[in-house]
């Protein structure tokens, strides 16, 4: 018990822990230094610093009634709680709380898959279920539904959804918060509430109509701190019969505009899955003169970059498209996409990709050769969870000894337009240059369309290599740089979609329209539903009244 919750002395804290242990049983209240080590954010921007966001203890319930009892005890002792599902959202804080000294409510033991319905295409799960668990459950039963998973498969569908995580299949499903259909939540007063049709005693369509009647508060629990979610409904994509890919390349820098507009059109008609943008010019970055042109302050000059492209015989942009459906419908959608591209973009080239019956075999998933070089990651496009993305961290052939040890995620939400992309390229690159931070952003950087109707543009860092050398000082430099980037992004009208606890106040502060009307509204709700401020103080930048002065 080296760390105590704010305002609680060690004797009172010990008494509170005894009360918690009576609820969850011996062994499931963890408070020794040794036991709390895994509750650190392994990729913390301030490791071992005085303000590192460490918990004072953890308590691990196995059932909803235990969660209710924990909340009641927390009210009695004024204990700040911080619920986690599987605690695996690394780059976004992992299991560490917003408020140092919080008691983590570790929901990993609540790991029941309550229902998977492959006729009506949904699941109902507890927070401790991982994407691996849900996938294995479905596979073992031969059910014809897919999960939409984020890059690492060890996370929780509930936790990821509450963090507004994303995936890689069709638009509706890859926006995990959109595919949330009903929650059960333990409120700050210990009551259990269900949203949508779950509020109807004996409701029969909880995972099919999320709104019920009246306001739907289920969204309040994402990136918020108004309750502890103990069950969640998820829409699942029916397993398609066929998967097809195709590549579009366009010659000129300014062609990015019609390319994006055409992909928007196809996406918004639900004709394509997650599109993967890129630039065929990337190999030229090893040429110093081209690199100088691509990292020019103020942004790349379109005519100059086009001359490089023409001299190299390369196109400027590409998008890899993927289609889910039947063999015939995917072909029809691809043929239509080709027709539109040729009509709208002079000089566009179209390349047929793969055409495979679903589910793909393990060999097909591991296949790396195809009609063209692809950057599309295979497992996640097929709804198969994996930890393969960890190849981007740790030792590599190129960096066997000075590898990146971690990552801090930062993605700005941009409008889906070429103008926004061009602006973001130079604003982020120029700002990082001014801050002395190594940046991989160039005039070739492209956004991702993980959300159905928005771009995300990455300005995240690996906490290693050139930026941080894995030292506390280096990570602090990254931390300060990211905070400065947030401010700069907001000046251009871009906000972050998600952040680690350490950065959540800074991110929330940018959403400041009308003197922070949104934050004031959120905190008015907080004071009303959680008057003792026990639930995840600070999450989403929302602080209870007695802790608002601690806002970073």
């Amino acid at each position, binding site marked *: 018990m080296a760390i105590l919750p704010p305002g609680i002395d060690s004797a009172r804290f010990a008494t509170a822990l005894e009360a918690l242990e009576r609820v969850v049983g011996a062994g499931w209240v963890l408070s020794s230094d040794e036991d709390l080590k895994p509750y650190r954010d392994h990729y913390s921007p301030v490791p071992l610093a005085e303000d590192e966001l460490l918990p004072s203890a*953890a308590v691990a319930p196995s059932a909803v009634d235990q969660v209710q009892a924990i909340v009641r005890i927390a009210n009695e002792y004024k204990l700040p709680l911080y619920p986690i599902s599987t605690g695996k959202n690394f780059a976004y804080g992992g299991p560490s709380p917003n408020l140092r000294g919080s008691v983590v409510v570790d929901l990993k033991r609540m790991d029941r898959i309550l229902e998977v319905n492959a006729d009506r295409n949904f699941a109902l799960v507890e927070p401790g279920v991982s994407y691996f668990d849900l996938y294995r459950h479905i596979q073992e039963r031969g059910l014809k539904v897919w999960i939409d998973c984020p890059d690492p498969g*060890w996370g929780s569908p509930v936790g990821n959804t509450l963090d507004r995580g994303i995936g890689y299949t069709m638009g509706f499903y890859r926006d995990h918060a959109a595919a949330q259909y009903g929650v059960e939540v333990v409120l700050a007063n210990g009551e259990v509430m269900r949203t949508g049709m779950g509020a109807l005693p004996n409701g029969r369509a909880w995972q099919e109509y999320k709104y019920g009647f009246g306001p739907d508060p289920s969204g309040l629990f994402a990136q918020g701190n108004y309750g502890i979610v103990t069950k969640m409904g998820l829409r699942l994509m029916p397993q398609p019969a066929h998967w097809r890919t195709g590549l579009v390349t366009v010659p000129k820098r300014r062609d990015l505009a019609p390319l994006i507009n055409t992909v928007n059109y196809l996406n918004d008609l639900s004709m394509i899955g997650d599109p993967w943008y890129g630039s065929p010019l990337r190999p030229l970055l090893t040429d110093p003169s081209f690199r100088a042109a691509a990292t020019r302050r103020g942004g790349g000059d379109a005519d100059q970059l086009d001359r490089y492209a023409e001299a190299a015989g390369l196109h400027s942009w590409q998008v890899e498209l993927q289609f889910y459906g039947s063999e015939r419908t995917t072909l029809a959608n691809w043929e239509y996409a080709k027709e539109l591209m040729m009509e709208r973009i002079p000089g566009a080239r179209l390349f047929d990709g793969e055409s495979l019956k679903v589910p793909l075999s393990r060999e097909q998933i591991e296949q790396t050769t195809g009609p063209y070089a692809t950057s599309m990651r295979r497992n996640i496009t097929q709804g198969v969870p*994996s930890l*393969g993305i960890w*190849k981007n961290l740790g030792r590599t052939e190129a960096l066997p000894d000075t590898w990146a040890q971690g990552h801090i995620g930062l993605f700005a939400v941009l409008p889906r337009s070429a103008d926004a992309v061009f602006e973001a390229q130079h604003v982020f690159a120029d700002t990082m240059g001014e801050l002395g931070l190594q940046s991989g952003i160039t005039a070739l950087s492209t956004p991702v369309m993980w959300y159905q109707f928005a771009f995300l543009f990455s300005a995240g860092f690996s906490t290693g290599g050139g930026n941080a050398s894995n030292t506390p000082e280096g990570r602090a430099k990254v931390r300060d740089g990211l905070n400065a980037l947030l401010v700069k992004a907001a000046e251009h009208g871009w906000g972050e979609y998600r952040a680690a606890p350490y950065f959540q106040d800074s991110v929330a502060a940018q959403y400041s329209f009308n003197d922070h009307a949104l934050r004031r509204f959120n905190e008015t709700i907080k004071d009303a539903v959680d008057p003792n401020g026990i639930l995840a103080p600070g999450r989403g930048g929302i602080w209870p009244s007695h802790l608002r002065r601690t806002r970073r």
Partner: protein
Amino acid sequence: MRLARPSALIALVAGWAALGQDADQIDRGKKVFEHYCAPCHGAGRGDDGAPMLPGTHALYLKYRGQISGLLEERADLPVELIKAVVRSGVASMPPFRKTEVTDEDLEAVAAYLKSSAARNPR
């Protein structure tokens, strides 16, 4: 026919029971390893052309082939070391909590790795 002495019988039965217990522990360790460790530290290719899974590849690069990158081929992993690495994390590998893998699970993993290394000597 001479009957075995009762004490010898007891020892025999106890030996079988211990063997059974070992087998149970190894089986439990295998399941835990497959669930929690193998997605990063297992055999086979990594994603999208990576030659190995990330954890296996990192260890392969660390030891430059002098020691196997595959944990299932390592006979030099005492339970204390496994617990230290799993509970603290190392390099880019984050730690695991007792709610995910218990100390008993890790003891079972150690028993499984010892057994698998004996079956798969390098």
